[in-house]
């Protein structure tokens, strides 16, 4: 990767903690105006990567560049990035406005100007008029917005967010996602945020960098990762998928279920040559319970049923000991034999 790109370039960084490789040759970019999510399970190295970008950790090897300038060894206070910490790290002895104004104070901005800018920043996150409160008087969601305002008011070159939604309760989380994307887009600064939740990443990010065990599994748009997963691990992590062994034949894959051969249409098959084996990625929305004789049908047994409001979710067992979920509005008893069919092209992974 060259260092000439505008925005953030992370170039093959490595970080080893007492023998454990936390970050293993990770490379990606954040282009001007882009919202990028670092997604992975705990222990995937996503937070360490973010802390290396912020400057709180040092990479053992590799480089971090911004607008072509090597900032690998630059201290965190010199990078001009704004960071939102997982637990917000709001200063408990300062008022909301003083918290937001702190970065301006450090930059020598006069008191009257910084209070004015802090109050404008609070307006933008919908906390106008709450500047005089102490931070503990605010709710979790409000504290999150103060942290965002504090990071954004210094007009950073890049916003960094560590699990920005993980401390919010589920209902608040839904609405905050959209707000967060709007605020980040309005701030014009590119943003890099870490999350373990693919729904957060889908809702907010323009691009997702999926990490596992310190390595980048796939780097692409949310649609790319969902529709065209590059590996089994990506397919397993993104969406609710069941993998079924298959062999590719042209644009089709052949799967064998209890001795019977079935054909499914493929939507993508990156890196699999014709005739090679791999696995097809079956997601609930690609399968339906058949009510007529049409198409290629697979027989299955209902082993569990869960009521999900608008519909039921059935857990089905294919004869070949493969279990997957299907949604249906119909009521079927547990233990019943049903026929299912694949209704749309599915991705295949090596």
């Amino acid at each position: 990767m060259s260092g000439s790109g505008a925005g953030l370039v992370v170039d093959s960084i490595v970080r080893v903690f007492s023998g454990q490789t936390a970050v293993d040759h990770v490379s990606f970019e954040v282009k001007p105006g882009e919202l990028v999510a670092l997604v992975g399970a705990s222990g995937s190295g996503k937070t360490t990567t973010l802390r290396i970008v912020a400057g709180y950790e040092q990479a053992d090897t590799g480089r971090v560049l911004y607008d072509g300038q090597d900032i690998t060894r630059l201290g965190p206070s010199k990078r001009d990035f704004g960071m939102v910490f997982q637990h917000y790290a709001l200063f408990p002895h300062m008022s909301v406005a003083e918290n937001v104004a702190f970065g301006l104070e450090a930059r020598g901005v006069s008191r009257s100007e910084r209070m004015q800018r802090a109050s404008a920043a609070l307006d933008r996150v919908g906390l106008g008029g709450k500047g005089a409160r102490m931070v503990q008087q605010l709710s979790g969601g409000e504290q999150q917005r103060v942290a965002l305002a504090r990071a954004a008011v210094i007009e950073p070159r890049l916003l960094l967010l560590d699990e920005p939604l993980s401390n919010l309760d589920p209902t608040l989380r839904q609405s905050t996602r959209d707000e967060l994307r709007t605020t980040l887009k309005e701030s014009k600064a590119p943003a890099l945020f870490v999350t373990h939740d693919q729904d957060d990443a889908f809702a907010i990010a323009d691009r997702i960098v999926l990490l596992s065990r310190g390595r980048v599994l796939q780097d692409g748009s949310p649609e790319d990762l969902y529709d065209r997963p590059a590996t089994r691990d990506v397919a397993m992590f993104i969406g609710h998928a069941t993998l079924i062994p298959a062999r590719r034949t042209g644009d089709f894959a052949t799967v064998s279920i209890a001795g019977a051969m079935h054909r499914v249409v493929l939507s993508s098959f990156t890196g699999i040559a014709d005739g090679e084996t791999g696995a097809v990625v079956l997601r609930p929305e690609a399968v339906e319970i058949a009510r007529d004789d049409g198409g290629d049908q697979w027989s299955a047994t209902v082993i569990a049923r869960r009521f999900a409001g608008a519909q039921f979710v059935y857990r089905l067992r294919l004869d070949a000991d493969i279990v997957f979920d299907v949604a249906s509005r119909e009521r079927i008893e547990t233990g019943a034999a049903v026929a299912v069919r694949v209704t749309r092209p599915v991705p295949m992974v090596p």
Partner: protein
Amino acid sequence: MTVPVWFGGRSRAERMATLAALPLLLILVWTVIYPNVAVIMGSVGHWREFAESPSDVEALKNSIIIAVASVAASLAIGVPLAFLLTRFDFPGRTVLRAAALLPAALPPLVGVISFLFLYGDTGVITRVVQIALRLKDVPWHLNGIGAIIFIHAYTMYVYVYLFVSAGLERYEASLDEAAIGLGAGTLRRLTRVTLPLLTPAIAGSALLVFMSALGSFSAPYVFGGGVRVLSTQILNSKLNDAIGLAYVETTVLAISAVAGLLLFRWLEGKRAYVAAGKGGASRQPVRSRWARIGLATSAALIVLVLVLPHLMIVLVSFAKDGAWTTQVLPPEYTTHNYAGLFTENQLWTPIRNSIVMSLLATAGNVVFCVAGAYLIVTRKFSGRRLLEALVALPWAIPGTAIALGLLATFNKNDLSTGKVLLVGTFWILPLAYFVRDIPLVSQAVEGSLKQMDPSLEPAARGLGASWWMAVRRVVLPAARPGIVAGALLACVTAVGEFVASIVLYTHGNRPISIEILAQLRSYAFGTASAYSALLIGLVLIMALAARFAESRMQ
């Protein structure tokens, strides 16, 4: 209208708790409140005497100057040391960390004596410096306000170091990272974020130092020279039979202490917020070669300074009495000093006295404080806050003042005024130790009980356990770490107690500290040091026992 069952039930439980608290409150009123009242009553008519005595006015001024300067000196040592040891990694860190607590193992009088051996006019360090610089006279005199502040700084910085270290361990590391990320330099981060957030720890430890320094007796008594402070004035007045004046001085000392307490609480209250996080700051390894060498050397030097008093006591405890005159180090050594303690009746009596009296006081503390803490933590009743305040009160009263209070109360048999004659008997010292250690043991037990899930006892009762079974099987096991820690601490403090003892002892119940002073006065340095080493050994054994008990309960 009938009273609902649940209401009647609750008020009955409250009545039971109040009833159970009543004897505890009575004991506290009798041994803590009444003595103070008696002192104040006794002071009436002598205040003009106090105001017109230049030495008393000077003593008040000196006491406050010494207390404030001791706070400043302890902060100046304790805060940087806490930062150094919790934030940085360098060669010698673990040794320095262990040595930093050593001054806490010196009972008050023992610390003073060891400083005399080291830095006094004929002290080892004094002579070494004098010889090295080829001075005609000694380079300094260990007396006056400066000397008192010097030894206070050595013994009391430990409070600051412990409090601030604990604060830094809990300190949320991301707060500092946030400040750095927002562009703050080291100075701004320290003054605007880190130190303000450590204010509760700093203020709490400063208060402890203030109270200890204000009531300090040993240092001014042994090498204050001509310096008058309130605590020594009290003893002087008492010995001169000017008991009324002693009561005035006691009242002034107690009022100063309580005023200091209120001042610090007010300062702390102004910064009421919770700054505790999950911690997580990692220690920065010091990388620069010269910084590492510099830190390692300083660490070695500091450890030496910290350990010297203990070494000195042990060394002199083997010195032959009377042989050490003009030499830098004692010239002749013997084990006779120790043998004497256990074989000569005169020398053994104080050891037996101290052990018996401290065990009696501690046993009383455990029974009393467990009952009190149980009621305070697990029950709601009228009088709860009063009980809570009264068990903490002796902490705010300097030892000399407590002793004078007991002197004013337990000086004759007169049931109409609630007075019982204990002064001049064996029992007055165990009582004094008991009163002084109530806050210590109560706080330890309350701490343990507060960590217990409050629904455990009701749960046990709900399963059919009797009250006693629930207490025995659920409450006491939960309180055990606090009971053990509190009992050991109380025992250690009582065994080495000096301040109240010197006011109240008789020849028959003289404790170790009084005997140390007597031996010192007759220039039997070896014997005095053997007693001191015994006390240090006891403190270390109890500290290890407490740690062992704690780790076994994890």
